């Protein structure tokens, strides 16, 4: 295990340093950086799998000269699971990047992107295996900084700089709250080691514990992108290069989920009141629904995917929150089920979201635009990318028999099994959360029908799309690997669930592997065999058999084999791309039905011909949706802060003498206090 750990860490570290030392051509730097990241990724996957199967956690510790800080590493089951997820997506991203960064040759230093890419993966790996609060904070901050530098890769664009700044501020607000959490925990433990957090010397009072719960939720929630702290995602994800967006959205935000589970189930040992779980559940349900609703209105493909990360983090938190509620009522088996559902969705979301960001990156590579309204007809021009994107879209829309369906199904079951709970309020709230999840699910379906349908089908809407060509092989391999994972994770839950069960058993103390699987593993039957069951391999088989039946019916009754080609009827005039439904038009009914949430403003200006009021010369249509959180939550804070800064300007005169006087006065005051 130590060797694998060394391979992983040294691989990333070499990838961090070596490309900067090679003054060679970008091609060599590209292969060197991403090749090393790929090797380290394989090492990380092996390490993760070994860690998941190991009986005892692997620990290692290097003392440092600073007080309170030790470079302690602990690879337990939870850490191994997240390490596996990070390495899996990291490996795919390394392969994808081999092709994708060729786009940047000559514009941006490839050695720098490659080096930062490795550094980012290294810091994420360290975040999940760190076993000391101080060490954790250091690598967490390093992770945030690496990702910030990657977001501003194309810093010559002003919107990219703005996105970077926004991200930097949000992530530091989050870090401040995380620091606060650890300081609160420190009150009881007197040490920053995670072991001391687990067994504090003196138990913390309830008030402090609840405060630590909230600061952790805010701090890690900022990174995870829960509503209303999600606002940085739709800026930062589109600005970053696509393989970085895939890493940020697929795995970086999951480190926050890791940390939340670590704090709530590990540090607090699962001793918490029911309302903690309820807060997490409510935050999850709201994030899921609002995330998908804002995604629907987005026509920048990468912003759309960013909002879907908010949605999926919400679904994961529904699982985690339900698990916390069940746990606080002592229903350990259900708690384990809900947590398994959350973890399974974490893995699945990492895989399909990275795949979709790769797809978006491929479209960007081929067309040089992120605007969906300029795509169209790309399935015929980019058949591989199209097929992979479709698999990702079907997975994220949770349609059987893909992986998204299985994990969302498990979340549904854990919410439905709430009828065993003693509290009437919770009995009602969990099914309502399930209804919100159902609405989220269909809206996600609509959103991806839009994303795929408008981008890949019908006629090309711009010359960019008309001249698009299929992307190079490394990008296709990166996508194909993840697409295959989507299908494998969907068809073989019986292999995944027992492993998840080991992870949750280490957190909760109850193993339900025997109660999850029925029919020799071919069906999932969570906890209560009577209540529900699902067999995704059987569904896949029946789907295939029924499609074959359809083909047989056609063969039986069909007359002629082939078909005739004809032009689509355009009411008498030749069909042009301008007649097609646009992405905006497609979601117009939804915008109207949910207008209370969107608060849309529509502006239509028409210039008529002078001769007649019946003929328009020019029309201008504009529509915006109200960015509710920005307006009512962030703008007041920003106004307040800049107002405060304005007032404080009085002391900042720019005179050196005055500053020296400030220092002198401060020194005197401090000396007086000390005396």
């Amino acid at each position, binding site marked *: 295990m130590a060797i694998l750990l060394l391979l992983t860490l040294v691989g990333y570290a070499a990838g961090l340093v070596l490309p900067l030392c090679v003054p060679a051509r970008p091609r060599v730097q590209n292969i060197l950086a991403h090749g090393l990241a790929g090797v380290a990724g394989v090492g990380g996957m092996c390490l993760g799998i070994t860690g998941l199967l190991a009986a005892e956690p692997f620990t290692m510790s290097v003392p440092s000269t600073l007080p309170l800080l030790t470079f302690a590493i602990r690879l337990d089951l939870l850490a191994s699971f997240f390490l596996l997820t990070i390495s899996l997506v990291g490996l795919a991203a390394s392969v994808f990047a081999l092709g994708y960064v060729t786009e940047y040759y000559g514009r941006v230093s490839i050695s720098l992107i490659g080096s930062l890419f490795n550094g980012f993966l290294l810091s994420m790996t360290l975040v999940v295996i760190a076993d000391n609060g101080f060490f954790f904070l250091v690598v967490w901050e390093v992770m945030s900084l690496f990702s910030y530098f990657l977001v501003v890769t194309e810093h010559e664009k002003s919107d990219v700089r703005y996105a970077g700044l926004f991200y930097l501020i949000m992530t530091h607000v989050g870090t401040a709250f995380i620091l606060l959490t650890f300081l609160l925990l420190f009150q009881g433990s007197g040490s920053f080691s995670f072991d001391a957090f687990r067994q504090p010397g003196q138990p913390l009072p309830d008030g402090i514990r609840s405060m630590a719960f909230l600061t952790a939720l805010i701090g890690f929630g900022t990174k995870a992108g829960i509503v209303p702290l999600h606002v940085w995602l739709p800026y930062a994800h589109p600005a970053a290069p696509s393989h970085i967006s895939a890493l940020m959205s697929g795995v970086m935000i999951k480190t926050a989920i890791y940390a939340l589970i670590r704090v709530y189930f590990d540090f607090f040992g699962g001793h918490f009141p029911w309302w903690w779980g309820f807060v997490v559940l409510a935050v999850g349900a709201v994030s899921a629904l609002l995330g998908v609703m804002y995604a629907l209105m987005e026509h920048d493909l990468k912003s759309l995917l960013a909002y879907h990360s908010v949605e999926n983090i919400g679904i994961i938190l529904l699982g985690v929150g339900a698990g916390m509620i069940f746990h606080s009522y002592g229903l350990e088996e259900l708690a384990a089920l809900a947590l398994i559902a959350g973890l399974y969705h974490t893995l699945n979301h990492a895989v399909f979201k990275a795949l979709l960001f790769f797809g978006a990156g491929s479209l960007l590579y081929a067309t040089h635009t992120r605007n969906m309204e300029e795509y169209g007809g790309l399935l015929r021009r980019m058949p591989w990318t199209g097929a992979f994107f479709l698999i990702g879209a079907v997975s994220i829309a949770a349609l059987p028999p893909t992986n998204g369906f299985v994990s969302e199904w498990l979340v549904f079951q854990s919410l439905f099994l709430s009828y065993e709970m003693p509290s009437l309020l919770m009995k009602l709230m969990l099914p309502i959360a399930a209804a919100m999840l159902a609405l989220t699910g269909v809206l996600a379906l609509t959103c991806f029908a839009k994303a795929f349908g408008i981008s890949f089908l019908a006629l090309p809407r711009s010359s960019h799309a008309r001249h698009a060509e299929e992307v190079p092989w490394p990008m296709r391999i990166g996508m194909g690997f993840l697409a295959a994972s989507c299908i494998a994770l969907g068809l073989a839950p019986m292999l995944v669930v027992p492993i998840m069960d080991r992870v949750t058993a280490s957190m909760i103390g109850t193993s339900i592997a025997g109660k999850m699987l029925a029919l020799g593993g071919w069906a999932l039957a969570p906890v209560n065999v009577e209540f529900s069951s699902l067999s995704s391999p059987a569904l896949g088989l029946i789907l295939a058999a029924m499609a074959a039946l359809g083909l047989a019916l056609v063969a039986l009754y069909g007359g002629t084999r082939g078909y005739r080609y004809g032009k689509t009827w355009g009411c008498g005039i030749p069909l042009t791309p301008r007649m097609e*439904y646009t992405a905006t038009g497609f979601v117009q009914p939804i915008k109207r039905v949910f207008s209370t949430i969107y608060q849309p403003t529509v502006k239509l200006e028409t210039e008529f011909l002078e001769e007649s009021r019946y003929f328009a010369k020019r029309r201008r249509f504009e529509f915006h949706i109200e960015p509710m959180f920005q307006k009512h939550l962030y703008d007041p804070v920003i106004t307040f802060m800049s107002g405060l800064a304005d007032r404080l300007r009085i002391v900042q005169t720019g005179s050196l003498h005055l500053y020296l006087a400030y220092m002198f006065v401060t020194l005197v005051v401090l000396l007086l206090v000390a005396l």
Partner: protein
Amino acid sequence: MITDHSIVQAIALTLAQAVVLIALAPAIVGLIRKVKARFQCRRGPGMFQPYADLRKLFGKQPVVSTTTSWIFTATPYIVFSSTMTAGLLVPVFASQMPLNFAGNIIAFVYLLALGTFFLILAGLDAGSPFGGMGSSRESIVASLTEPAMIMAIFAIALAAGSTNLSTIVHKTALLEGIVIDPSSHVMALAALFIVALAETGRVPVDNPATHLELTMIHEAMVLEYSGRYLALVEWASGIKLLVFLTLIANVFVPWGIATSVTPAALSIGLAVYVVKIAVLAVLIGTIECMFAKLRLFRVTDLLGVAFILALLGLLFFYILRG
């Protein structure tokens, strides 16, 4: 949940159910049309006309738009397959279906969603504005029906202690350890009936007989299909209608369904099933003649009512049971 059939019996039962669904679907469509014709004082075509239509469509050479991709030609098979798979999860004439283990009500809903997803894509594929319009509208109707459907079935599932359809039906048919609570069941039934009308594109949500593109939802989506592709899509939508009627009939009034696998029980089950479905089909035909189609943005109110009814059903269940 898991039934104790032998392999041969299991396969035979599943196949028999598939055959019943496939064979009966066009007749139900024909029956509804016949009822509507009668109400409009027409004689109308015979009940078995849809079979002849399908046969003719299968024999015709389809025309495929030059704009389309493989999605367009694959969709009919995917829709047929997902609808049939969903149909096999609902008990039809025997309550203990061997495929019960394969999926519960959530799987049923999401399998139908798989078909909807591909139909929406196919509607967009030809590039015609009518297809896009149908797809856009179908997506909003689907978005609003699904939560109501899941809540309605959950309200019933609670009484039976299972979300697997065969188990619900079997337990209710034998009155075995279940609580039949009329208020919550009635609410759920009303909600599910509205959902069924919306999901299968009937009046007052959509009009399957309309000839005006601007008022179409489902028909606009499949406007570009012809020949064998149209036949498959039409057949699948007939099967979807039948499956929804089956769901309502067997979940709320399961009595008469074969609870054991004996020739006598099975033949009685089949006969009772046909009668129940025929009654529901006549009911739908009657509703189609008594109500006008709603405007698209009024449909949301109707579906909102369905959702509230389902939620009330759930509430009643918990409150009445304490």
